[in-house]
């Protein structure tokens, strides 16, 4: 990856984060998890996935599924930046006149499946991957899982079955931001050693720095599919990445900021001083 390419990706990620911040006001959104997976999604849509607005319905397209659906502002930011939907449309966030809300809706171009309840889309992705395999298509299915989501037994049930069925055009990516809703994962239901867990289930597992485009490029460039085994990439990330004032703070999971706070956060994203935040987080759980 050239320095120029890397800069372009980082600029794209910054614009996606700006979209996320804009969606964190006037009703709010799950900003922390959206910011943690933004770089991974940018990398995938710019460099890895075989999909574009022109091939959004092509049978052999690659598929990305957000199993932890509450990070969808990051996906909508990406889809807007890649031209699947207009950037203007993001202003419709939480309007009943559109389908853009806190969890994905596949009525929005580029969204492959809806989600919201955790632990569903690994199995849905497995069905899509098997369908492609039966049809002899080169389709790869990528499923983004939250680390908190790994509390759900259905994820591990699906892991067992994916391995049993040798679904090797399937890549799960764990957005390992070390937090679930209110607390650090290791303080509630510890997940480590995580890669070993997946390996014990018959998966290939690797780690990547989920905020470093170079590392992501090395990881996905070296990714071996069609090995007879499914693959998991554990992306080490930080919740709230890009905004030091909310980064890794347990109380900044879902936020509904005032317009002034959102403006200050946009400044902060650009490297200016920290925003002063008084809005309290919404406790959903």
């Amino acid at each position, binding site marked *: 990856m050239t320095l120029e390419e890397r800069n372009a990706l980082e600029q794209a990620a910054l614009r996606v984060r700006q979209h996320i911040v804009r969606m964190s006001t006037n009703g709010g959104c799950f900003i922390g998890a959206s910011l943690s997976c933004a770089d991974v999604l940018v990398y995938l849509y710019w460099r890895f996935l075989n999909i574009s607005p022109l091939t959004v319905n092509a049978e052999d397209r690659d598929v990305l599924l957000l199993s932890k659906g509450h990070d969808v502002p990051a996906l909508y930011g990406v889809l807007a930046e890649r031209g699947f939907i207009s950037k203007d449309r993001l202003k419709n966030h939480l309007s009943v006149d559109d389908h853009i809300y806190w969890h994905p809706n596949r009525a929005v171009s580029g969204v492959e*499946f*809806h989600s919201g309840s955790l632990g569903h889309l690994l*199995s849905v992705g497995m*069905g899509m991957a098997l*369908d492609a395999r039966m049809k002899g298509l080169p389709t790869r299915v990528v499923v983004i899982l939250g680390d908190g989501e790994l509390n759900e037994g259905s994820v591990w049930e699906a892991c067992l*079955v994916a391995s*049993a*069925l040798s679904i090797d055009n399937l890549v799960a990516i764990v957005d390992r931001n070390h937090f679930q809703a209110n607390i650090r994962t290791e303080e509630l239901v510890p997940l480590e050693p995580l890669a070993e867990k997946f390996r014990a289930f018959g998966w290939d597992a690797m780690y990547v720095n989920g905020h470093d485009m170079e590392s992501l490029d090395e990881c996905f460039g070296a990714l071996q599919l069609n090995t007879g085994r499914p693959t998991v990439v554990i992306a080490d990330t930080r919740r709230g990445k890009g905004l030091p004032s909310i980064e890794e703070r347990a109380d900044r999971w879902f936020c509904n900021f005032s317009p002034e706070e959102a403006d200050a956060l946009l400044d902060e994203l650009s490297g200016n001083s920290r925003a002063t935040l008084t809005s309290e987080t919404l406790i959903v759980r």
Partner: protein
Amino acid sequence: MNRYETLLLDTASRDERLVVITAENRGHMRTVPPMLGDRFIDVGIAEQTMIGMAAGMAVRGRVVVTHALAAFLTMRAFEFIRDDVAIANAPVIMVGMVPGVLSDGNGPTHQAIEDVSIMRGLPNMGVFCPCDESEFIDGMRVLLESRRPWYVRYINTPDLAISRVAFEPGVATVVRGESLHRPNVTILTYGFLTRQCIEAAEELGRDDVQVRVVNMRTLKPADEKAILHAAGTSELVVTVEDHLLTGGLASIVAETLMAHGKGAHVLTIGFPTWFTPGRLDEVLANEHISSAAIAHRIRQRLADIVHVPAAPPSSTHEVTHA
């Protein structure tokens, strides 16, 4: 090869979209796996994964039959059915084994007697409860082409001696007493107990109680006309089902009468709670849903109606003694 296997293999040979997935429940389709090749998938004892996978395939153009024990299919995987199949309105045909009373000796964990209630509660979902093997096969042929989700109570019992009307969702059939103009009793039923209802009607007929038996076939959509016709032409409407009294046909009849502002005397026969497990014939007797018990309960209720002077015929319900 049974007729279910023949249906699946015939359909698969004509329609390359068809995929069959089971959660290790191969008893009634042993010849299917080798003949369907990679279009047969056994996920093991993993109903949630089975349904999620089926939804993923279905939104990519497949038609998927999922086959598992009715209780585990509908209840272990319920949220997957709701979120991934019903919300997506995906063509997944979910076939539940040993539903209702057919779980006989298994015990309450295996009793799918709330399945109709919870499945019909889902938007987009259809519910089909055939009365015998032929009806199951005829209905499945239609559902496989329907491009929408269905829950089906599996049945392979010997065919009833009934006249058959081409399967159509939401259209009930009269399986006994079609020629009766104003029967004393109309039994509305579905599934396995249709046989018991026909036999009960025969027994009551010998005592000059005229009984029509209506087989609902699909509980969603339910044939509202058939329900209103029963209420409008009979002294007593009886619902018979191997299902809880909550949420099944008894509720459907109540909802329908309420929605249309109609009244009727209704006897609801079903389970108030999980039934005592045992051999099937003993369960039927013990739960008072054998043909003799159904006839007895109808006789009793008819006597109650006759002896209740404070129940005059309403304007919408004319009581007529045939």
